[in-house]
């Protein structure tokens, strides 16, 4: 298990990380929104930024984009520190806390406005780039409707299109599938995968664990302003032991047997006895039960999901952080 703590040295700029923070902290008054996190997003990764609503993900993203000033700590985005962040931002596409556009302008006019504000965007190619971005998110047919008339899913797509107007090395997508139907969610997943396939680093935040698990190479888990754990998906789930589920007509008698083997958190649910395997080899469980004269009608080992990991790390469900 790999844990990142404040005591670790700041991540140096060797080009291996698209985003690296060191002790990054943000306080709003007396409330600590982000508490000394060391975020490390390797270049080329699809990094799932996990945590319940209110855990500090969005505040972290706002700091990385220069919208909010850190109270303490430092960060680098595409090699640029906070002071020179504007040199990196043209290569960063961002979707922060939902789409926001001028209500009375069309989708296309809204993109044209953002493109006009970009000093690195070539006006000669604006029309083509805007249409390409709209096409990429499947919004070309509704391009000339007013933003006011867009559904939440269409608004979300337009925000993603805005992030794709010019070539990007890093995409920061805060809850990109919010409000999308299952089809749209799948499309966003494909889009993220295809962008990542081209070498774009992606930081995608979500509170939907299953979504993250499918598209990410790395994850970081935030909770109440702290980074609980981060690394590759395998690294993060490694520390959580798989669960053994034993089915027997006499579960009460099985409990001491399993405990004797070294399983922890053993509990009874109907005909099931469930316990954390820990380092106990699964094959020993059935043997021990049979040896103790128990009837075993079923046995399964469940690999830990991110959900299990999160529950194990926080001791609670994936709910709003206080």
């Amino acid at each position, binding site marked *: 298990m790999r844990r990142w703590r404040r005591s670790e040295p700041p991540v140096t700029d060797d080009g291996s990380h698209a985003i690296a923070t060191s002790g990054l902290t943000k306080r709003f008054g007396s409330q600590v929104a982000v508490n000394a996190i060391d975020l490390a997003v390797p270049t080329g990764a699809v990094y799932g930024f996990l945590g319940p609503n209110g855990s500090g993900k969005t505040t972290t993203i706002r700091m990385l*984009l220069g919208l909010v000033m850190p109270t303490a700590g430092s960060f680098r985005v595409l090699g640029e520190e906070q002071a020179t962040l*504007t040199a990196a931002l043209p290569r960063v596409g961002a979707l922060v806390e939902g789409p*926001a556009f*001028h209500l009375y302008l069309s989708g296309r006019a809204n993109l044209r406005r953002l493109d006009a504000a970009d000093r690195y965007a070539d006006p000669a190619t604006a029309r083509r780039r805007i249409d390409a971005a709209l096409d990429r998110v499947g919004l070309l047919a509704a391009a000339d409707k007013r933003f006011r008339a867009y559904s939440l899913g269409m608004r979300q797509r337009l925000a993603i299109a805005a992030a794709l107007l010019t070539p990007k090395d890093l995409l920061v997508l805060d809850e990109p599938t919010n409000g999308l139907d299952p089809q749209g969610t799948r499309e966003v997943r494909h889009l993220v995968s295809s962008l990542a396939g081209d070498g774009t680093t992606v930081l995608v935040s979500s509170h939907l664990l299953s979504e993250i698990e499918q598209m990410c190479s790395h994850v970081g888990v935030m909770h109440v302003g702290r980074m609980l754990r981060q690394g590759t998906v395998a690294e993060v789930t490694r520390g959580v032991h798989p669960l053994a589920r034993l089915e027997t007509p006499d579960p009460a008698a099985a409990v001491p047997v399993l405990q004797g083997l070294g399983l922890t958190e053993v509990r009874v649910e109907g005909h099931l006895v469930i316990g954390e395997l820990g380092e106990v080899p699964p094959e020993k469980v059935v043997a021990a039960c049979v040896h103790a004269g128990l009837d075993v009608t079923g046995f399964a080992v469940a690999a830990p999901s991110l959900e299990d990991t999160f529950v194990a790390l926080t001791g609670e469900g994936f709910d709003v952080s206080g």
Partner: protein
Amino acid sequence: MSAAEITQATRLTVAPRVGTRFLRSELRLIFGRRRNQLALVVLGLPPIAIAIAVRTSLSQPGSTAPTFFSSIAGNGLFVALAALTVEMAMLLPLATAMTSGDSVAGEANSGTLRYLLTVPVGRLRLLFVKYAGIVVFALTSTLVVALVGVLVGVILFGGGSMTLLSGNQIGFVEGLLRVVGAALYLGAGMAALGAVGLLISTLTEQPIAATLATVVFSAGSLIIDQIPQLGALHPYLLVDRWADFSDLFRFPILWTGVMHGLYVDLAYVVVAFLAAWARFSVKDITS
């Protein structure tokens, strides 16, 4: 566009463009907005109303009528000046307060501010462009009043040479130029009020609140300006010299009041803009 084109970020080897594209986009946003178009229409109504009222009333305004009104029958250009006088206190500041109050707070309120800043638009550049838009709208507003006044006035009362307040006569073209000068002078005053509006707009995420506060600032200045006991404050009030545009219609032109007014405008612009910059440059954008 192929995926490869999207990733290859070769463009940062290109220097950032210097141009008016963002400003033009800002102007399109301001002038394309129904509310602002309506405001310009409303500003054009008083000169029409004044001209028709004077034309159709049986008794022409006597010598006791407010400045400019008594001269309308003699030359249509005075319709513009009468309209500027009646709109100076309320309607013109209101229009300026509307666009300037909305400038930053409106973007913050709709959330578009965070997307502009991550494009990235530098915060100082954003303030400059926002303020430039405010100035253009302010000048447009006073010019609309003046030009509608000139147009209606000349149609209903004719043009020709203009008799100044001092009794001298000047030609129509010179008279027209002086009317435009008066509109630009008042426009500068509105632009200075717009700087105050910009400052207030960086302090809140509620555009209506920023607009109201700017109106209150303007109205409050007018009230103080009319209390003789507070005379010591008057030279520092933004509105104090606005009415001095009438000095442009004397012979020779009395520059003292107008120049004083322009200096006060400039001082307000510098102080308000710097304060807006000081506030906005370190502001946490949480909207």
